[in-house]
């Protein structure tokens, strides 16, 4: 039976609740494999595991339970070892590395912030900032909507203005919240949001971080900010080579 791994934590860390269950249908019981000072939170791996909603939630749930009162290094979803011995072997082999990661991330949680524009509000903004767009909108309306080419030209202009605004606001979100975080990790760009940034925040200063988000909301009503957290430090477990220098302040030097 292969072994599904949720995360790695310190063995001294209070163990997971008795009846905690994880992935699979029916949900499989969660176990703890201890190796020296480290522990892996695991369960049996179900046959034919796929990234389904209930299993993604189960993964996330086990991590938040096991990380509720101590640091846990979250595994990426779907990590399966051939057996328990492989897991304990990896922990033993790389124990110094994982212990160091746990120390570095101790007492810290991840908050992920995604920003989008409220479309109507941002269009108002673009209109009031941009006389050309106003003039062309007006001209088109007077012409009963404008010709196909006119509408294309206006649309192109508006899209460019909205995009410029997106870039500006992405910088704004990041620079407003960065001072409250120990480290940040900029997520991949996507069409779904204009900013997707994870912040590593001291558990104890989470309240002031959330306050800062609220301030930002009030100051910029055209921004739609979605905050998720506290989360296990998904984005800060492993300083990957792909991260540009300086985006993981306080993490980089800890690697050596």
């Amino acid at each position: 039976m292969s072994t599904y791994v949720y995360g790695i934590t310190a063995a001294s860390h209070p163990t997971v609740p008795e009846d905690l269950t994880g992935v699979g249908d029916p949900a499989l019981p969660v176990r703890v494999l201890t190796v020296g000072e480290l522990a892996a939170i695991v369960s049996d791996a179900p046959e034919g595991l796929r990234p389904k909603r209930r299993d993604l939630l189960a993964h996330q749930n086990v991590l938040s339970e096991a990380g509720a009162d101590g640091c846990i290094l979250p595994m990426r979803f779907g990590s399966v070892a051939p057996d328990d011995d492989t897991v304990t072997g990896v922990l033993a082999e790389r124990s110094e590395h994982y212990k160091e990661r746990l120390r570095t991330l101790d007492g810290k949680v991840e908050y992920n912030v995604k920003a989008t524009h409220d479309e109507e509000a941002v269009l108002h903004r673009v209109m009031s900032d941009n006389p050309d767009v106003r003039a062309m909108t007006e001209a088109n309306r007077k012409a009963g909507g404008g010709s196909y080419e006119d509408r294309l030209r206006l649309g192109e202009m508006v899209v460019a203005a909205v995009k410029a605004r997106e870039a500006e606001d992405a910088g704004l979100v990041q620079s407003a919240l960065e001072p409250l975080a120990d480290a940040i990790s900029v997520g991949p760009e996507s069409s779904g949001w204009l900013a997707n940034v994870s912040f590593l925040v001291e558990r104890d200063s989470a309240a002031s971080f959330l306050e800062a988000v609220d301030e930002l909301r009030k100051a910029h009503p055209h921004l739609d900010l979605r905050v998720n957290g506290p989360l296990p430090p998904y984005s800060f477990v492993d300083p990957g080579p792909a991260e540009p220098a300086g985006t993981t302040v306080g993490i980089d030097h800890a690697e050596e």
Partner: protein
Amino acid sequence: MTVVPAQQGGGGGGSSGLYDVLELVLDRGLVIDAFVRVSLVGIEILKIDVRVVVASVDTYLRFAEACNRLDLESGPNKSPGLPDVVGSITESGARGKSKGALSGAAETISDAFKQAREGDGQSESRPRARKSTASRRKEEQE
């Protein structure tokens, strides 16, 4: 897509937040090369969002249309709204329904722009000021 009021979920575990943490659960977190990972074929679908701003003819037309509607519904000037359009049609009588309504709207728009310009950027984004405009205008006319 569900829109979740932005509160922090306890432990981030609630299903409501799944969409937003999906990419963290699937794309970040520790990877150990001695382990295998389940196949994520098909998962890309989950990452596609409707709010796409890409440069395409369709997008341009959509935004042009959005701008067209914008001030009619909630611009700095009070837009007629339905009841008043009906009113102006009765006033203009023989001029014909559509013409009356259209020219009325055009006037409102040019007024709106005049105001916006004179008000030197005072026309802050007020996305939710729409509801009351029709009734306010009615009062002004009476």
